[in-house]
């Protein structure tokens, strides 16, 4: 036993992976529609050789003649290690033998055709190829089942897997995107700051160059409704246009413009220019924020078959998140509106702070720098 050598050399392995070759994989691609099944199975020649011996002349090389001579045996061996079932076992046959190259060598390519007892319901895959001889072997499965793509790694401890043919229900998709919408407005600080900057002055009224507290809650509420509705309508328009692929803007421009919108909204509180029609700011910049939401939605990946539904779900999620912020902010702001804390601390101080943060964002995004966490 060379345990000492083993230990020392494996300390080396631990220290840095050595993978001149790669572990064994087969690539199984299946397409199942109704009872019909087609597919392709790529199995490394080295693996076939290990399992059943291909090198007839013992010269250390496998040529096409040696492989061709064993085609029938390969089919028997491979199909005995793969069971597909849909309402019972599917009958499988190999219709063609070819070869292809992968990163670690040449593979036999078996074209598969099959027929399943049932044309509906889930598909079971039981994969056992090579597991008893190579515990690191993996079957990399890509299954297209009634138009839905599944990927799976078949392993000795995960050799039997079942795949559902059901599309996720429309309600579930809607719900998923709704939650994402809410989540995004809550973690999207730039959107929140923009909204807050616009909302800070709604409990105040500007008269003769001075602020006074709004008289009635309804007055403030009406102002809020105008601002929030304008913001919503605007970003819904651009979100939809962008998500449907009708308009697209470079993300750096969008992100910079969003930062600029926060800067201007904060500045307008400190040195009012637009006072009566604050909803106009909300609308104009809402158009830009919509592009920002669209990029998030693009990252999530919109399901093509439920495009509009998902879009509406996401948008409603954004609105709900927004309304939750307003619902917390407005009563508190109205209650505090005549205090020094609100007038100087929250209104002036908050606007100043917002301005500062947004300016840093603007510089970072426009110049592609990173100044702040």
């Amino acid at each position, binding site marked *: 036993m060379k*345990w*000492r*050598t*083993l*230990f*020392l*050399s*494996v*300390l*080396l*392995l*631990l*220290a*840095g*992976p*050595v*993978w*001149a*070759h*790669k*572990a064994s*994989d087969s*690539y199984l691609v299946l397409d199942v529609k109704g009872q019909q099944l087609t597919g*392709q199975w*790529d199995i490394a*020649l*080295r693996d076939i050789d290990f399992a059943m011996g291909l*090198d007839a002349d*013992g*010269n*250390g*090389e*496998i*040529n*096409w*003649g040696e*492989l*061709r001579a064993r085609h029938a045996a390969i089919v028997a061996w491979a199909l005995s290690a793969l069971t597909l079932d849909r309402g019972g076992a599917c009958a499988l046959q190999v219709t063609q*033998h*070819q*070869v*292809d190259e*992968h*990163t670690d060598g*040449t593979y036999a*390519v078996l074209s598969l055709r099959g027929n399943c007892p049932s044309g509906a319901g889930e598909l079971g895959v039981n994969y056992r190829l090579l*597991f008893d*001889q*190579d*515990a*690191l072997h993996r079957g*990399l499965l*890509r299954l297209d089942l009634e138009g839905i793509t599944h990927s799976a*790694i078949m392993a*000795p401890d995960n050799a039997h897997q079942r795949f559902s043919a059901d599309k996720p229900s429309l309600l579930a998709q809607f719900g998923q995107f709704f939650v994402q919408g809410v989540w995004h407005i809550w973690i999207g600080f730039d959107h929140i700051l923009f909204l807050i900057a616009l909302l800070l002055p709604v409990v105040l009224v500007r008269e003769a160059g001075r602020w006074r507290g709004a008289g009635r809650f309804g007055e403030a509420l009406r102002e809020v409704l105008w601002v929030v509705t304008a913001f919503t309508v605007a970003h819904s328009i651009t979100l939809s246009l962008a998500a449907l692929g009708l308009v697209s803007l470079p993300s750096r421009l969008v992100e910079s413009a969003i930062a600029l919108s926060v800067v201007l909204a904060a500045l307008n509180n400190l040195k009012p220019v637009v006072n009566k029609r604050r909803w106009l700011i909300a609308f104009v910049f809402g158009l830009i924020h919509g592009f920002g939401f669209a990029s998030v939605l693009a990252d999530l990946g919109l399901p093509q078959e439920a495009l509009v539904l998902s879009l509406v779900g996401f948008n409603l999620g954004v609105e709900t998140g927004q309304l939750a912020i307003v619902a917390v902010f407005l009563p508190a702001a109205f209650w505090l509106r005549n205090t020094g804390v609100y007038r100087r601390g929250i209104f002036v101080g908050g606007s100043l702070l917002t301005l500062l943060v947004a300016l840093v*964002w603007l510089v*970072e995004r426009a110049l592609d720098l*990173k100044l*702040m*966490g």
Partner: protein
Amino acid sequence: MLAAVSHAVPRTPASDAEVLEKLPTRAADSTARELTALRAAVAKAPTDASSATELAQRYFDLALAQGDPRYVGYAEAVVARFADPLPASLLTLRGVLRQYRHDFAGALKDFEAALALAPDYAVAHAWRGAIYLVEADYGAAQKECAALQTLGRATLAGACRGLLQAYSGQLAAAYTTLQNTLSLATDADNRLWLLTRLGEVAAWRGQDAQAHYREALGLGRDDVYLLAAWTDFLLDAGQPAEVVRLLAKWESADSLLLRLAEAETLLKLPEAARHQKMLVDRFAAARARGDTTHRAEEARFELRLRQDTATALRLAQENYAVQREPRDARVLLEAAVAAKDRASAQVVREWLQRSGFEDARTRRLAQASEAAGTDGGKK
């Protein structure tokens, strides 16, 4: 995902004589004959622990010699086929195979079970020590080195202690320990290992590492790790042309292909693009099978060759959660500096603080990571 690893459209070869694949062994080779005999012995006596251990270990030796993970899978299957309860030798071997794919927790359990059966089993102590060193648990590693010493296994104990000292702030002592151990070692494999480590320790100390590496290369054995350490030294020393010369024939070894591509990129050689593409394919193939053992090298690839600092940082962080050796620390620091992300490198700075690891380059990088960036990577 599969598209990334499938290269072309399947084809039908034109002639029976077309060679499709070269196998690692020929039937008449001594290795092949030996394996055939061992397999036959296991088939004849499936409950005999010693023949199962011998076959599995022979496969594992081949995996190390050729760097071919398929043999690891064969070895694991031999162990898996053996009926419970496993004896200490097979438990230890299973642990060794588990650590190979970075299942350190599973491996430690196997070594513990083996030592419960056979408390004096030096091999299990040695392996536990190796894993604790990778995990930067130096207190635990110290106990394993001491156990090896008590068992009178001087070379194993010296290798264990030398590495432990190097990682925990005693480079000078590590150098002496490794040199003393080298003077005990007669086996070429052991000498190669010790010389490689001496080269690394010398480089960390800012001393001449070349003599050690050259002596190791002079042993005339192919060794992927030695070449990786040596070419890393050359890259750091600004000698990429030498790296290209050394590694031109090593594109099959992915860790060396990475160094080759780095050197070619520095020299603006036309081969660089092709080798980068090969690396992309191989990383994709590993990812497709759920293999996460190459993240340190992939992080370096993203950082140095693709300038994708965000991806590099993510990979380096994921790697560091599993492996915490100096090279893992370095790639995380480099990625954090490039991404100007102070917070991500905090774990490494804490390790440096705690371990006292002395390499000046690592310490400079740690300072840079502290100064350059901001907290958190997100806007």
